[in-house]
């Protein structure tokens, strides 16, 4: 079908074209002589409203608009891992090869390298009947990740032909399926194409029981996220959203990470690009980049492409999920995405709701976060997509629409606190305002590793809550006017904050904290509190407790004892006990 219309009106990224009667909603079109990429978002008679993913400067009414007959889609296949794309899946390195430092308009590049050959191992034989989504072959894409190619979700049938093991390019046909009802034989390459805005199907949800470990103590211990869960990180500027997202992308216990830099800073994406290849994944021993796909649509890149970038990212995540992997999506920042919606909505002259955002903002947010989850894949595996979205509330005010709507659709809320950030206490996740609804689901997982986990966690949590109350009083009367028992609460809470909650993501020992190290540290801190309390009850003072010889070792254990050194923690524990015995005398 060859529909060609004519531009009649241009207003920023929104273009109207006539003669588009036969075109479909959300169909991709090429706009103008430069063939800029756009998407149809409204149809009225033969008039189509198109959002254009590139700068429209210089376009003129009368220039042609060509429909392509397909919705905005993502190419899925070997070559995704380690790539960096813009919002509409154009590889940025290829664009650089073409046009240098700047992104020029009308760039046409293929998302996946067509020439490069991949080692292909078939898992099925001729004559077998394949269901939609069934894994039919493996490709060792990187040493860290083996691709398990699924049959596209809209295809099934008897294998008429399958390529033997060997090296194939993405353009080569590797599978031919004969539909059961006797239709024409369909040919498949290793690449499948899927509409970005459409969720990939699965057999249904399964309960989430595993935590997604992040190596951040405040997250794993206090506000854990389950594999397949959703979390939001709201925080004003400078509170460390991006740094937290980077830390999660580095250390999360997911098999594949999709990092979406959506309307954020260019230099930050460069930072990720430079850092990740050098970082070693503690689980596979391979470079982090081998399990990462990046989407970078920085704030100065076209706003319409920012809107679509999160769909591109999550579709890629679902593709890896369908191979049986646990995938984590980091979206930084969903507020910028919402602002892109607002800008486009304004240009469409739609009736605004809260603060100029369109009325469908909550629906779009819900649709996005609902694509997360732990599912049974069409192939029968259990796999998950977890989503962590940063939110940038204007003025750090959490009552604004994006934060408010987001908190309805997520179950884990990591509120970043301005005061903590100002004191350079990172991660600046507030232990007072944050919450996680996944705690009951994953407690069982921790119990296996440490039977005292819930009790220890609660003890520290209570201590922090208590301190918050006491601090208000202390602010009025001065801490020295409090009884010794309460002074001790202030002191030990300070210790917990500095020794446990604060974590330095640039310190090679402290940047990642294993669950074993977390439980060992908790055990020491809880015991420290108990012993100190006993001391004070027996007539000791806080000043004496402060002078205990092991205090500095406890304070610095996060830096001085690495993961996988349980003996050292045991030694510290014994030393602490001995010190308290000594003090008791």
């Amino acid at each position, binding site marked *: 079908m060859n529909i060609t219309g004519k531009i*009649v*009106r*241009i207003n920023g990224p929104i273009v*109207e074209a006539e003669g588009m009667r036969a075109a479909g909603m959300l169909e991709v079109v090429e706009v103008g002589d430069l063939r800029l990429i756009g998407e149809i978002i409204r149809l009225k008679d033969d008039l189509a409203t198109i959002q254009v993913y590139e700068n*429209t*400067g*210089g*376009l*003129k*009414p009368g220039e042609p608009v060509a429909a392509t007959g397909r919705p905005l889609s993502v190419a899925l296949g070997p070559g995704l891992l380690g790539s960096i794309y813009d919002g509409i899946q154009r590889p*940025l390195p290829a*664009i*650089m090869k073409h046009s240098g*430092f*700047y*992104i020029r308009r009308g760039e046409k590049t293929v998302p996946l390298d067509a020439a490069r050959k991949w080692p292909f191992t078939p898992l099925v034989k001729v004559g077998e009947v394949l269901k939609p989504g069934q894994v039919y072959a493996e490709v060792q894409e990187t040493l860290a990740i083996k691709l398990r190619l699924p049959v596209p979700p809209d295809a099934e049938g008897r294998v008429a032909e399958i390529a033997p093991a060997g090296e194939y390019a993405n353009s080569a046909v590797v599978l031919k399926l004969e539909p059961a009802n006797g239709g024409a034989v369909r040919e498949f390459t290793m690449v499948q194409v899927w509409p970005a805005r459409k969720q990939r199907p699965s057999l249904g949800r399964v309960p989430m029981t595993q935590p997604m470990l992040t190596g951040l103590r405040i997250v794993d211990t206090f506000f854990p996220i389950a594999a397949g869960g959703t979390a939001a990180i709201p925080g*004003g500027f*400078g509170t460390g959203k991006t740094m937290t997202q980077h830390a999660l992308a580095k250390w999360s216990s997911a098999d594949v990470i999709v990092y979406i830099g959506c*309307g954020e*800073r*260019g*230099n930050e*994406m*460069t*930072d990720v*690009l430079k850092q990740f290849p050098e970082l070693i994944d503690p689980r596979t021993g391979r470079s982090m980049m081998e399990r990462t796909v990046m989407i*970078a649509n*920085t*704030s*100065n*890149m*076209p*706003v319409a492409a920012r809107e679509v970038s999160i769909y591109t990212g999550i579709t890629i995540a679902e593709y890896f999920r369908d191979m049986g992997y646990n995938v984590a999506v980091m979206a930084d920042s969903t507020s*910028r995405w919402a*602002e*892109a919606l*607002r800008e486009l909505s*304004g240009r469409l002259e739609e009736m*605004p709701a809260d*603060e*100029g955002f369109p009325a469908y903002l909550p629906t779009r947010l819900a649709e996005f976060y609902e694509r997360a989850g732990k599912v049974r894949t069409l192939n029968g595996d259990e796999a998950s997509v977890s989503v962590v979205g940063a939110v*940038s509330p*204007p*003025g*750090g*005010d959490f009552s604004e629409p994006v934060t408010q709507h987001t908190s309805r659709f997520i179950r884990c809320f990591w509120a970043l606190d301005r005061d903590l950030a*100002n*004191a*350079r206490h990172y991660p600046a996740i507030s232990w007072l305002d944050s919450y996680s609804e996944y705690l009951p689901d994953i407690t069982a997982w921790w119990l296996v590793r440490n039977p005292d986990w819930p009790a220890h966690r609660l003890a520290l949590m209570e201590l922090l809550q208590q301190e918050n109350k006491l601090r208000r009083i*202390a*602010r*009025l009367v*001065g801490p*020295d006017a409090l009884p010794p028992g309460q002074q001790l609460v202030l002191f030990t809470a300070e210790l917990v904050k*500095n020794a446990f909650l604060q974590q330095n993501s*640039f310190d090679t020992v402290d940047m990642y904290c294993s669950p074993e190290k977390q439980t060992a540290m908790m055990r020491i801190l809880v015991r420290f509190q108990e012993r100190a309390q006993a001391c004070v009850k027996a007539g000791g003072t806080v000043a004496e407790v*402060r002078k205990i010889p092991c*205090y*500095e070792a406890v*304070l610095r254990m996060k830096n001085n004892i690495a993961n996988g050194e349980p003996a050292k923690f045991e030694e510290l524990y014994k030393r602490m006990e001995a010190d308290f015995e000594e003090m008791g005398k």
Partner: protein
Amino acid sequence: MNQTGLEYCGLRKLDGPLFVIDGVCDVGYAEIVEITAPDGSPRIGQVLEVGRGMAVVQVFSGTTGLSTSGTRARFLGTGLEIPVSKEMLGRVFDGLGRPKDGLPEVLTSERRDVNGLPLNPYAREYPRDFIQTGISAIDLMNSIVRGQKLPIFSGNGLPHNRMAAQIARQARLLGKGDQPFAIVFAAMGVKYDVARFFIDSFERSGVSGNVTMFLSLADDPSVERLVTPRAALTFAEYLAFEQGMHVLVLLTDMTNYCEALREIATARGEIPSRKGYPGYLYSDLASIYERAGRVAGGAGSVTQMAILTMPSDDISHPVPDLTGYITEGQIVLNREMFQRGIYPPVAGLPSLSRLMKDGIGKGLTRDDHPHVASQLFACYSKVKEIRALASVIGEEELSPLDKLYMKFGEEFERRLVTQGEEENRSIEQSLDLGWELLKILPRAELYRLTEEELKERYDGVAV
């Protein structure tokens, strides 16, 4: 005068800085329009919207004196471009890039679109060359690196201009020889005196041959301000990425720029978001601020320092708020400190440089820099807490430790932050000063420093 294209006569409607013209054909979006007023004076405008024979045009030099019948418009078929050449160093231009110093037009065939193109994130080089500004509050606590965009959040009456001028005078790269540098200065809606102050400051330090100015002063039409920072950055990018120079871009005052943007948006009847600013303020600001950085394999860099005055010192106002979300940190000036006679009045806690972590430390500044900065921050934030307490219970009632913190806070502000306008401290000096202050506190309080660092600098025993 450009002679291409048809000239249209007569407008349908004039409204604020905009006009609507009918019956046009072959007009492109964002195209430049040359307008002749009834009295024959030339103006420049840009197409904001086209469709069905109609075009909406914004007039940069104001619509005063235009009439619906006697105005003529010619569409030039190109976007807004400025000439670029190294000859432009040392010159003064108006907000649209036309000479303002009485000298002739720039002779060059090189022209660049003022909107630029987005830098490919893949082509960027991560900035990590420490710039020594000679100001302790910045070098030690909020270090700047080449290619960073770091704004100064200030208020009316605060010494942001003096500080920016001091930075421009003193900034240098550590341990590297002389490299070609330039300063591009863009003034949006500031008073003539402010522009004069900068010109004098550059002349006094003998760098004015390396400075290019784009001035759109307070009495120039406000719409012109929308182009001024873009023209300046276009020239800066040319110098940096095509001529291999290190460019410091000073933009002042971004609040005026945003107000001009709001004016246009309102005139077009757009749906406002916060405080009447258009919903796309973030994207628009990003299209300015993101034009900083370094490129892989390129020799030059664009470092941006935007100055903005926060209306009624409110940091949550949309302009500083959205700026903070785009820039790599911010230097916040504090009125209370200024009134106590502290110059530069850099607020300790809300100021931040995001690129600091990779530009300091071993091999870049001094090994102990990251930990010293972090420890000073931690102590200073504790000072703030103790001061709040002291204001309730009285300083006399504080514990001995708290009193030490009070002393530390006072010395921190009086000795480390405070310095003369001509005083140029090396990073070594700043760091040593930091240690001197830390020695006021007991050793056990300094938990962000390593044992080795404490041994070497606190106990005075070399390891």
